[in-house]
């Protein structure tokens, strides 16, 4: 057994908590079916929203691209069933803001007819760039929850020497079992997907880590991974082992630097469901249009996992699991620790929807009247990132955003361990989320102000320059004009002077000539007279 040879490490803190995972793993994964109306949000990922490429009234087929990627860090979206586009409009999506974002609404025709797919038989020898392009065009994003475009993650920066691929199957959050069921029922897809990603990254070491509360998934994966060189490792069950940085620490002993990414220490981490989606896109040409979603919680009588078309309304999923919701119950997308509450069941599923928790008050951790902090330090003891949650709480409360950053706020993974153990029921994570988004907003404002200042200064400079240039032009023109007139005058004067001089000269010449002629005339008769006399 390969698994037993690897030395495992520990991260700081963490919490042992009841898993509540048995309920939803009793039944096999079933198809959720095709709902009448599908709502595809154009932004289901980190990065730029997709741009719609269909119009209202268009007929679309299952798997047809309806929104193309809006940038490098972005992902396309596809129709998850065949039908007619009835609207492209802003609609509410599962997001804590409750904001509406542009969505494509498809009225399904029930035929569920696929677009022409392009399978790739020899994917194990295919060009790496072709593989990346197929993954990008399939709109695959991290299915563990963050929804970061997978193709971008599989294109590490040139200066990062990647030597390890870690596949995250830990699934540490209570209630969620979608990855567990995927690994049990489709281990080959996961392992083939891992092999494809390993080839793209060109790494030798490849480890799949999953918590030891999933023995069936472990056995299935190990059988599938036999002979591939992919290591399957069981890790101790403690929340939040499924955090990317925590799993890396457990499996390799390495720590991702503060505010850094795993690529900086030569590691890329991907989720098991992402691996399966990569396999389907590369081998069969299928875009990411469905995923397994766990529907569980005290408010459903038949909790199970459903293979769900992206865009299916949450209430459609609930309807498959015999719900009995009371007014105190809450709908949560995700688990009880990190999930986001949903306003109602009409919201569509997105690529990041791993679980729909119909939670009774008993399913939600640490509910109670918020009391003053007693400085017990429990939060510090359980923080998996080694932060000081209590200090950050004081600073966030006082809105001291520069001080809270001194405590490495941005390394907080928002796992909720601190809130879970807080004896005063303080919603600590909410304070950190508040502080993070406030700081981002301030940074955006600062950037905008700097841009406005530069542009304003430039405008002032330009006006000054124009004024100066205008003045210079005027001056130059004036100078030219004076030069011209004075030069002309001088020429005229010089000319007249010369004329005058010449005239005077001529007059003087004439006068002299006259005088000389007169003198000669006077002398000659005398001479003649003298001669005659002689």
């Amino acid at each position, binding site marked *: 057994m390969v698994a037993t040879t690897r030395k495992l490490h520990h991260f700081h803190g963490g919490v042992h908590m009841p898993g509540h995972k048995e309920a939803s793993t009793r039944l096999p994964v079933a198809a959720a079916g095709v709902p009448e109306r599908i709502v595809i949000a154009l932004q289901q990922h980190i990065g730029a929203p997709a741009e719609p490429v269909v119009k209202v009234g268009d007929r679309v087929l299952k798997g047809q691209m309806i929104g193309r990627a809006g940038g490098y860090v972005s992902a396309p979206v596809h129709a998850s069933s065949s039908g007619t586009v009835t609207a492209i409009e802003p609609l509410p999506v599962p997001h804590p803001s409750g904001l509406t974002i542009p969505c494509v609404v498809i009225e399904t025709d029930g035929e569920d007819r696929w677009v022409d797919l392009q399978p790739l038989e020899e994917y194990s020898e295919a060009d790496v760039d072709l593989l990346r392009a197929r993954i990008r065009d399939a709109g695959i994003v991290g299915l563990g929850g963050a929804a970061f475009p997978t193709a971008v993650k599989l294109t590490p920066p040139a200066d990062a020497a990647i030597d390890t691929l870690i596949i995250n199957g830990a699934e540490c959050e209570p209630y969620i079992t979608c990855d567990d069921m995927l690994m049990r029922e489709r281990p080959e897809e996961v392992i083939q997907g891992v092999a494809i990603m390993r080839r793209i990254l060109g790494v030798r070491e490849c480890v799949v880590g999953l918590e030891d509360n999933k023995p069936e998934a472990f056995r299935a994966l190990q059988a599938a991974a036999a002979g591939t060189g992919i290591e399957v490792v069981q890790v101790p069950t403690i929340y939040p082992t499924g955090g990317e940085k925590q799993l890396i620490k457990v499996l390799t002993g390495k720590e991702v630097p503060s505010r850094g990414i795993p690529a900086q220490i030569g590691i890329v981490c991907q989720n098991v469901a992402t691996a399966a989606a990569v396999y389907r896109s590369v081998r069969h040409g299928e875009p990411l249009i469905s995923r397994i979603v766990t529907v569980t919680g005290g408010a459903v009588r038949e909790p199970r996992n459903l293979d769900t078309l992206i865009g299916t309304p949450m209430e459609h999923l609930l309807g498959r699991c015999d719900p009995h919701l009371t007014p105190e119950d809450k709908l949560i997308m995700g688990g009880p620790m990190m999930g986001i509450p949903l306003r109602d069941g009409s919201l569509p599923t997105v690529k990041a929807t791993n679980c729909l928790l119909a939670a009774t008050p008993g399913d939600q951790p640490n509910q109670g009247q*918020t009391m003053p*902090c007693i400085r017990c330090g429990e939060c510090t003891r359980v923080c998996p990132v080694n932060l000081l949650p209590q200090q950050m709480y004081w600073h966030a409360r006082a809105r001291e955003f520069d001080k809270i950053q001194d405590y490495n706020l941005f390394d907080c993974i928002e796992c909720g361990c601190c809130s879970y153990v807080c004896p005063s029921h303080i919603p600590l994570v*909410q*304070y950190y989320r*508040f502080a993070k988004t406030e700081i981002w907003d301030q940074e955006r404002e600062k950037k905008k*102000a700097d841009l*406005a200042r530069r*542009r304003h200064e430039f405008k002032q400079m330009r006006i000054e320059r124009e004024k100066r240039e205008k003045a210079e032009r005027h001056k130059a023109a004036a100078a030219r004009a004076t030069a011209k007139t004075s030069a002309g005058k001088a020429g005229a004067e010089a000319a007249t002077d010369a004329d005058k001089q010449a005239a005077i000269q001529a007059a003087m010449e004439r006068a002299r000539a006259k005088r000389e002629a007169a003198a000669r005339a006077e002398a000659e008769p005398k001479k003649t007279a003298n001669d005659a006399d002689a």
Partner: protein
Amino acid sequence: MISAVLAITTLAVIFGSLLGYAAVRFRVEGDPVVDQIDSLLPQTQCGQCGFPGCRPYAEALASGEAEINRCPPGGEATIQALADLLGREPMPLDGEVGEEKRRMVAYVVEEECIGCTLCLQACPVDAILGAAKQMHQVIEAECTGCELCIPPCPVECIHMHPVEQGLNEWKWPFPKHQPPMGSAA
């Protein structure tokens, strides 16, 4: 007696020349306080404070001629930041100069624009694009929402729109139900 006078004089000369040298060598161009204040202002250049732009207001603040509560676009946060920097008491925004409101951007109704270029000249950040007898439009990313282009427009075709908030700009609210600080705090 003579030696003491000589010693003091020598010291005075040495230190005097040192200070004089330092004054030349480490001379700071401009007023750093004005720069610091200017960096806290929102740079809308709207003139609501009564000064022709953010920098003149910063200069007035630095010389103590203006109150810190005259910047409506900056609002509460700017007043707080200015109070911290200048060591003055925070005060509520002066109601006379305006009120804090959502960030807006200008928008030209293209059918009505006559291409007079008056708004182009009014825009402090050159965020309006156009030429004489050509239709004008606002570069949204660069508009500060100062509203200075509105009064010059002879056909009133410029309107202010609130900035659309996307998922990436959304902020988590401050948690409700504040627990008291408690005796331990």
